[in-house]
């Protein structure tokens, strides 16, 4: 899993009271930055990662040696232009790329496993807020992220209404749906059903629930794509064979693709982190924090919002993104919204979707000119 090298870490000394009631202190937040902070410190963008992301947004991830998860969107001259902006991203607490999580040791030097406190999206953003103090930034230029990253965006601007000038939630929701909780539960069950999980204590026994985690990833991966996208990419094409083999090997390319996705995921992700982070997503319900009135979550901010959804995203569909737009309009907030045409499903925000990338770039650059 993570190697200590190449990971920048901020130790948060201040105690943080978690939603579950427990308090953590002296805990690490692993982060990475791109571009440079200007002298006025007004060009910083805080990017929040999704379920399986990490702080290595763009360029080569030094731990996995693969491209960063948002390489299409972030970099010099890209939509989030690192020649112009200072991009900060940190690993969420509960994660496995250096921030405080279940693979860390408790004060008695025992690996937490499932004794790590259950964390929420609110806990994640409260922990990450410490990065603003660390860099001496009074107000961010923007906060953005897709999927669970979008949930953190919404929670952040609720918790810290005057700490960002612009707010860009992408392909997200203000309240995790029953369908999404169901898919997350499927993933968790796959992990905990693996005999190597050992109630979460697998690290001490030098095994890991790789098979369960791979199945969790395979199931989730399907939800990130669209039926049309899958059909066009794979159809019924066979995997390196002329005909069906009448067995249970991967006859079809889609089977082989999913198996591969599962296997590479296991090499870079911790099974217990998967349990913790999916739980945090399931618990997310911003409207519930305000007796069902989502508008209340945004009433103290005068930030400029820009919300983006994708036509083929059935995991965080347009309507759920539009509910956020409606809540903002009902209090007269400054909000723009666009639904991007794409066959690439929920994953569209991570991929080369030109209409999405140009909308993101134009919104940021025009807002920056106006500041």
């Amino acid at each position, binding site marked *: 899993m993570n190697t200590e090298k190449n990971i920048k870490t901020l130790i948060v000394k201040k105690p943080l009271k978690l939603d579950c009631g427990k308090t953590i202190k002296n805990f690490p937040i692993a982060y990475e930055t791109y571009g440079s902070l200007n002298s006025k410190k007004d060009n910083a963008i805080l990017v929040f990662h999704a379920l399986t992301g990490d702080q290595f947004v763009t360029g080569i991830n030094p731990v996995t040696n693969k491209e960063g998860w948002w390489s299409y969107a972030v970099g010099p001259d890209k939509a989030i232009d690192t020649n112009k902006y200072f991009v900060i991203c940190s690993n969420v607490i509960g994660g496995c790329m250096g921030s405080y999580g279940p693979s860390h040791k408790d004060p008695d030097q025992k690996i937490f496993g499932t004794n790590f406190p259950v964390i929420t999206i609110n806990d994640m953003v409260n922990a990450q807020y410490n990065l603003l103090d660390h860099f001496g930034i009074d107000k961010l230029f923007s906060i953005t992220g897709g999927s669970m990253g979008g949930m953190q965006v919404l929670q952040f601007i609720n918790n810290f209404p005057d700490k960002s000038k612009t707010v860009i939630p992408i392909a997200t929701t203000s309240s995790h749906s029953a369908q999404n909780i169901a898919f997350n539960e499927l993933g968790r069950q796959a992990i905990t059903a693996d005999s190597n999980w050992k109630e979460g204590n697998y690290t001490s026994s030098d095994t890991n629930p790789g098979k369960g985690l791979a199945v969790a990833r395979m199931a989730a991966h399907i939800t990130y794509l669209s039926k049309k996208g899958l059909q066009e990419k794979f159809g019924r094409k066979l995997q390196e064979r002329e005909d069906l083999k009448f067995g249970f090997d991967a006859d079809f390319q889609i089977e082989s693709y999913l198996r591969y996705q599962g296997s590479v995921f296991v090499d870079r992700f911790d099974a217990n982190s998967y349990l913790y982070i999916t739980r945090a997503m399931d618990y997310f319900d911003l409207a519930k924090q305000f007796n069902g009135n989502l508008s209340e979550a945004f009433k103290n901010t005068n930030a400029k919002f820009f919300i983006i959804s994708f036509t083929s995203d059935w995991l965080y569909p347009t309507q759920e993104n539009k509910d956020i737009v409606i809540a903002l309009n009902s209090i007269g907030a400054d909000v723009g*919204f666009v*639904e991007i*045409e794409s066959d690439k499903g929920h994953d569209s925000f991570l991929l080369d979707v030109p209409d999405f990338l140009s909308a993101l770039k134009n919104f940021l650059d025009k807002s920056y000119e106006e500041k």
Partner: protein
Amino acid sequence: MKNEFQVIADLIEKDKKVLDVGCADGTLMKFLKDNKNINIRGLEISKEKVQECIAKGLTVIEGNAEKDLKQFPDKSFDYVVLSQTLQAFLNPELVLDELLRVGKKAIVTIPNFGYWKVRFHLLFKGTMPITKTLPDEWYNTPNLHMCTIKDFFHFVKSKDIKIFKSIALNNLNSSTINERNLGVKNLFADLGIFLIEK
């Protein structure tokens, strides 16, 4: 910028909050923002046009006026503008009611089906009129509910909607419409612009 937009812009005072319904590529919005310091929002159904607005740095929401106006609170804008789109809605009456609910005032412009060129076209050619403001064929026009300046004038009166200003536009000439000259304006204007309030 087209003359219609200049007339609309002249109706709006500086520093107001305005919603442009069916804002297209944002030409009017940009003008109002840059020249009158207007706090401007747009609602537009076409994805391409929404992208053009974003590229101009305008706040625009992709959406359909018939469904999406209801999310805005009562009287949350000083002015709501609807340019040459009323006739394209399934239910123009409902949209008009929504404009007047959301806006303290509304500015509505309509292509005039009573314009003499339109009448002549149908009378002498016997085919559906095609003019500068009505450029489409009968089979591909988005217009479902064409009306004349006279129709619209009578319609808003019957709904107890207050008309502050009604302007007839013919190319570069604009003039005021009133009860007495209604018949003449209805013949010689290709566009009607109405500032109304409920």
